[in-house]
């Protein structure tokens, strides 16, 4: 199966195959001159693209509405496990939201760092394309608008960040 999806923000595709075919397929792709990359590179790409990572930014303790993933839920059309809760969250408005942010000072945000006002960083790294620290995290809904300044506790030092619209970075051709 070839998916025109991807988890990097770049044009590309994901190939799913049977396990016994994987090595031969991998070797064939590499033989065409593709440069392999690892999870670290993937993580900077997906964060620049504001793509949430399960286990970091979303998980059993978050809901799709606050994570900005309401568009993936057919709340009107279908009934499914959890649909009632999601409808209620959507109707009331979530108390917190997953936001993307860019550091305004030299510092790299990391998962688990507190955000002043009750928030927390769920993913953070150095953006190779923008050459600044970037990240995602949950903040109270009142702090979620693009342009809002956040203060992140970087190992005891307050560092300023700014909420930005998703994605954090889009490649210009």
């Amino acid at each position, binding site marked *: 199966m070839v998916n025109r999806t991807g988890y990097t923000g770049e044009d590309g595709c994901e190939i799913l195959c049977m396990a016994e075919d994987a090595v031969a397929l991998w070797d064939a792709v590499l033989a065409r001159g593709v440069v392999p990359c690892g999870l*670290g590179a993937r993580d900077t790409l997906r964060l620049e693209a504001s793509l949430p990572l399960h286990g970091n930014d979303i998980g059993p303790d978050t809901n799709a509405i606050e994570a900005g993933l309401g568009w993936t839920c057919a709340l009107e059309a279908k009934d499914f496990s959890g649909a009632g809760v999601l409808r209620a969250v959507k109707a009331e408005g979530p108390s917190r939201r997953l936001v993307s942010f860019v550091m305004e000072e030299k510092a*790299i945000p*990391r998962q688990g760092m507190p955000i002043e006002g009750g928030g927390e960083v769920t993913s953070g790294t*150095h953006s*190779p394309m923008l050459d600044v620290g970037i990240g995602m995290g949950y903040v109270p809904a009142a702090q979620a608008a693009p342009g809002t300044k956040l203060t992140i506790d970087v190992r005891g030092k307050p560092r300023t960040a700014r909420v930005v619209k998703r994605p954090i970075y889009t490649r210009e051709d």
Partner: protein
Amino acid sequence: MAAAESYPEDLKYHSEHDWARIDGDEAVLGITWFAADALGELVHFEPPAPGAAVAKDASYGEVESVKAVSDVIAPLSGEVLEVNQAVVDAPETVNEDPYGAGWLVRIRLSDPSEVDALLDLAAYKQVLADQ
């Protein structure tokens, strides 16, 4: 371009992969090629403030790559006279030239006798061999 592996003869070393270039009662401090290579390309140096006290064997700053952050351990005690702004502005300088342009701070030693406890090149190479 990251530098090739090297450990100059004229430096003193600390087992936490830091070096010191002693000049009278002053010393220039940095991290070794091994430390820079282990972290990967540095993207952030969190320096101490000029005038701050640094204590032997304690952290005086942080170096950070995309994947990891590490304390920088002071091989000697003293007072920070100068921070290398070139590294603050371009942290990858440490990878490119760890013993030259990639120095981190210059300090005035508060106890020059501490130098005697540092490792010479042969002793530091033994530390590397034991990693």
